[in-house]
C-alpha cells in the first residue's frame, strides 16, 4: 500500500488504542445499541462503535472515509464478518486477500503461488485503480529492504531477553517494541531508525545490568521468568502489567508479539522475491499457525529463554486465540515440566477485566512457582 502512497488505517489497532485510552467501553456499548451481541469479538464492536460515534481515531482527529477496504486475514476468520460490516458502512470497493491456514505446520509452494496470484490479479489492480499509480516493484523492494533491516534489530531486542536477568519485558514492554513495525512504520526510514535507537538503548541497559523499563521506572530484582501466551488486556494494561512487575515477574518471551510475524524464527522480508515474501509473511503470522506449531514455538521459548513458568491470558471474546488453550497448557506442562498458569480477561471490553480475581490468580501462581523452587519450606 505504501508503495502506492496509500495510508493504512488498521481497525484492530484503533480498537486496542481505544482500549488503552479508556474509550472502548463506550464504543462497545454503542455497537451493542446497534444490535451487536455481547459475546462477539470486542475489537469488532469497539471499531464499529467508534465509527458510529463519529470515527474519531486515536489521534483525536476524525478518520476520513476509506477509498478501499483491504482485507487480509491471517488465522482470524472474524475479520471476514468484520469487513462485511464495514462494507455496509462505507460505500467503497473491497479487495480481499485470502490467506491459507498453515494446516500442515509449514508453508507449501502452492500456498505461495496462490497468494501471489491474488496479489497480481486482485490486490494490485485495485490499488492501482484507487491510487492512480502503477505498481512500482523497485519501490516495493526498497521498502522490503528497509523492513528487513529493522527486523534484524527487533529480533536482537526480543532475544536480549535470553539474558538472565533480562533487560526487557517481552510482553508488556514488547507491545511497544512491535508497535511501530506492526502498524505504521514498516518499511520506512523512520522504522529503521526507531529500531536502531531501541537496540542501542536495550544494549545499554544490558551493559548496565538494568532490568526492564516499566511505567514506574526500572524493574527491580528479576524473581520469575515467564513466557506468555495470548494477547494482553488493553483496558487495564498498566494495572495488569503492575501485577507482574510488583512481584518481580518478567515476561521473557510471548506469542502475542508474533502476531505480526515470526521474525525470531528466521523470517525476513526478502527484496529479491517481493510478492513471494509478502505471501510468506502473511502465512507466518502467529494466529495463522495450528496448535502443534504453536505448541512447538512455546516449548522452544520456555527452553531457550530459561523460563520458570508460562502463563496463558485467555481472551473471552477471541476464539481464534483461545480455542485449544487449555490443551496447550496441559501439553506444555507435560513436555517441559514447567507449570502453567491460566487467567481470563478480554481485549477491549472493560467489563471482562476483574482485577481482584486476576491479581489473585497471578499471585497464587507466582507463589506456587516460588514454592516449587524452594520446596516445602517456602
Amino acid at each position, binding site marked *: 500500500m505504501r508503495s502506492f502512497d496509500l495510508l493504512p488505517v488498521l481497525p484492530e489497532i484503533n480498537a486496542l488504542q481505544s482500549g488503552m485510552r479508556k474509550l472502548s467501553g463506550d464504543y462497545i456499548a454503542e455497537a451493542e445499541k446497534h444490535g451487536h451481541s455481547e459475546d462477539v469479538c470486542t475489537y469488532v464492536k469497539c471499531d464499529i462503535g467508534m465509527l458510529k460515534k463519529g470515527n474519531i481515531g486515536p489521534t483525536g482527529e476524525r478518520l476520513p472515509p476509506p477509498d478501499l477496504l483491504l482485507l487480509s486475514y491471517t488465522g482470524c476468520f472474524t475479520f471476514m464478518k468484520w469487513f462485511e460490516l464495514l462494507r455496509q458502512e462505507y460505500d467503497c470497493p473491497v479487495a480481499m486477500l485470502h490467506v491459507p491456514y498453515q494446516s500442515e505446520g509449514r508453508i507449501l509452494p502452492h500456498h505461495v503461488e496462490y497468494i501471489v496470484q491474488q496479489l497480481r490479479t486482485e490486490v494490485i489492480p485495485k490499488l492501482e485503480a484507487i491510487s492512480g499509480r502503477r505498481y512500482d516493484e523497485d519501490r516495493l523492494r526498497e521498502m522490503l529492504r528497509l523492513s528487513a533491516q529493522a527486523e534484524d534489530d527487533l529480533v536482537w531486542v526480543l532475544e536480549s531477553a535470553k539474558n538472565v536477568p533480562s533487560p526487557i519485558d517481552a510482553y508488556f514492554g514488547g507491545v511497544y517494541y512491535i508497535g511501530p513495525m506492526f502498524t505504521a512504520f514498516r518499511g520506512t526510514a523512520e522504522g529503521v531508525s526507531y529500531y536502531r535507537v531501541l537496540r542501542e538503548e536495550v544494549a545499554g541497559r544490558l551493559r548496565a545490568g538494568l532490568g526492564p523499563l516499566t511505567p514506574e521506572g526500572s524493574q527491580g530484582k528479576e524473581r520469575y521468568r515467564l513466557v506468555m501466551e495470548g494477547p494482553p488486556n488493553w483496558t487495564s494494561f498498566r494495572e495488569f502489567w503492575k501485577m507482574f512487575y510488583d512481584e518481580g515477574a518478567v515476561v521473557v518471551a510471548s506469542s502475542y508479539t508474533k502476531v505480526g510475524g515470526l521474525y525470531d524464527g528466521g523470517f525476513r522480508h526478502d527484496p529479491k522475491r517481493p510478492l513471494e515474501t509478502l505471501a510468506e509473511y502473511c502465512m507466518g503470522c502467529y494466529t495463522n499457525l495450528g496448535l502443534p506449531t504453536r505448541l512447538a514455538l512455546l516449548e522452544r521459548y520456555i527452553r531457550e529463554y530459561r523460563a520458570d513458568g508460562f502463563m496463558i491470558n485467555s481472551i473471552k471474546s477471541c476464539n481464534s486465540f483461545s480455542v485449544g488453550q487449555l490443551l496447550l497448557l496441559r501439553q506444555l506442562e507435560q513436555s517441559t515440566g514447567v507449570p502453567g498458569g491460566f487467567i481470563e480477561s478480554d481485549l477491549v471490553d472493560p467489563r471482562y477485566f476483574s482485577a481482584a480475581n486476576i491479581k489473585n490468580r497471578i499471585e497464587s501462581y507466582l507463589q506456587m512457582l516460588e514454592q516449587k523452587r524452594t520446596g*516445602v519450606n517456602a
Partner: protein
Amino acid sequence: MKALRTYVGIDLGSTTTKAVVLNDAGEVIGRGITNSRSNYDVACQVVREEAMVRTRFTLTRQAITGDPALAQVEKAFLSSLQRNFRFRQHLDQLARLREALFRAAGDPRHSAHRRELNTALESIVDGMVERAGLHFSELAVRKSDFFRDLATADYMQLAEQHSDPRGITFDMLCGLFDAAILVVENAIAQGSFETQLRGALEPTLASATLAVQEKASRLREVVEATCGAQIVETGTVGTGYGRQRLPFPKEQIRSEILCHGLGAHAMFPGSRTVLDIGGQDTKAIQVDGDGLVVSFQMNDRCAAGCGRYLGYIADEMNLGLHELGPLAQQSTSRVKINSTCTVFAGAELRERLSLGQRREDIVAGLHRAIILRAMSLLARSGGVRDEFTFTGGVARNPAAVDALRQLVQENYGERTLNISADSIYTGALGAALFARRAAQANA
C-alpha cells in the same frame, strides 16, 4: 513459667474468617471462626482472640488431663466451664447491644415516642437476656455460634411481640437493631480473658457434681495458671480473598491456593487433588506428596455455583443453609438444571415450583448443577486423582457431597474422598503451617 510459642494462620474469607493456632509441634491448639462482617480488620482481630481463648482452654484441658488427681473430672468440668464462659461473653455483648440500641434510639427523629420506644427496647433486651441462658444450656442446639445470628433471631421474635403498627413499629425496631448490631460487631473490647474465665469458674463449680466440687481448689489453681500462661505469637500468616486487607506485611501473606493445598495435605497426607468450594470462589488444586501445589484452576470473576448460591436458595425457600442438603437428599426424581447463575436462582426456583415440581427434586438438581461446574474446573486443573479431598463450607452439605461422589465415580472411577469435619479451617491451617515453617526456618 515458660512462654508458649504459637503460630497463627488467618483465613479471611468472603463469608467467614477463620483462625488456627499451632504449637511448636504443629498440633492444632486453638481455632476461631467469625463472620467476616463489613470490617476485615475487626473480623481478623475477633477471630484471633477467639482462637487464643480456645488455646487457653486447650492449655486448661492439658493441665487437667496431665494431673492424675483430676483424671475423672475433665470432660464434665471443661464443657461446663466453656459454656459458662461463652454465656458470660454473650451477656457482655448483650449489654453492649443494649447500650448501642439506646444510643441509636436517642436520635432526635424518635423524640415523639421516646418513652414508648425505650420501654419496648428495655423489654426486648430483657427478653434476650432471659433467653441467653437457654442458648448455653447443656442440651442447647444452637443454629449458629455467631452473636449476630443468635441476637438477630431473638431480637426479631421479641420485636414482633413488642411492636405496634400504630406506635412503635416493627420496622422502626429493625432499623435500630441494624444500626446497633454493627456497633457491637465492630467493637473489639471483649473484657479480658482472665476476668471472663474467673467469672465463669465459680458458677461452674457451684453447679458441678460433688466429685468435681471436691477438687475445687486444685481446679482453681489450674485455671489461675492458664490465665497467667504466657502465649507468644511467634509467627503469623494471613490468607483468603480478603488477604490484601490483612494488617500484615507482604511476606506474611500467602495465596489461599497454597494454604488450601498444604492444609488439605496436613489433614489427609494422601491428598493429591483438592476441591474447595467457598462462599464466592471454587478452587481445584493439584498437590504433590508434600502438599505443594502443582497446578490449580479457579472460577472466573462470576461466582455462580459457589457457596453463596446455596445461601440464596436457602433464603428463597425460608430454610437454614444446613437444611438444604438433607432436603435434597429426600429427592426421588432429580430435576435437571443448567443455570447456576445466582442472580437468576430465585426466578428459576419459583418457575419450577409453579410447574408443580417438588422442592426436594429441584434442590437436588441445584446441588448437582453446582457440582457439575466444579467438575469442569477439576477437569481443567488436571482431573481428579487419588486421594481426593473436598474442603470449604459446601463440603458440609451432604447433598453436594453425594453429587460429587457420584460424578467423580462416573468420570474418574473409584477415588478415596476425604472430608474433614473441620474442613472450613483448611486454609487457616495451611497458613498456620506456613507461619510455623517460616519461623522455624529463620530460627
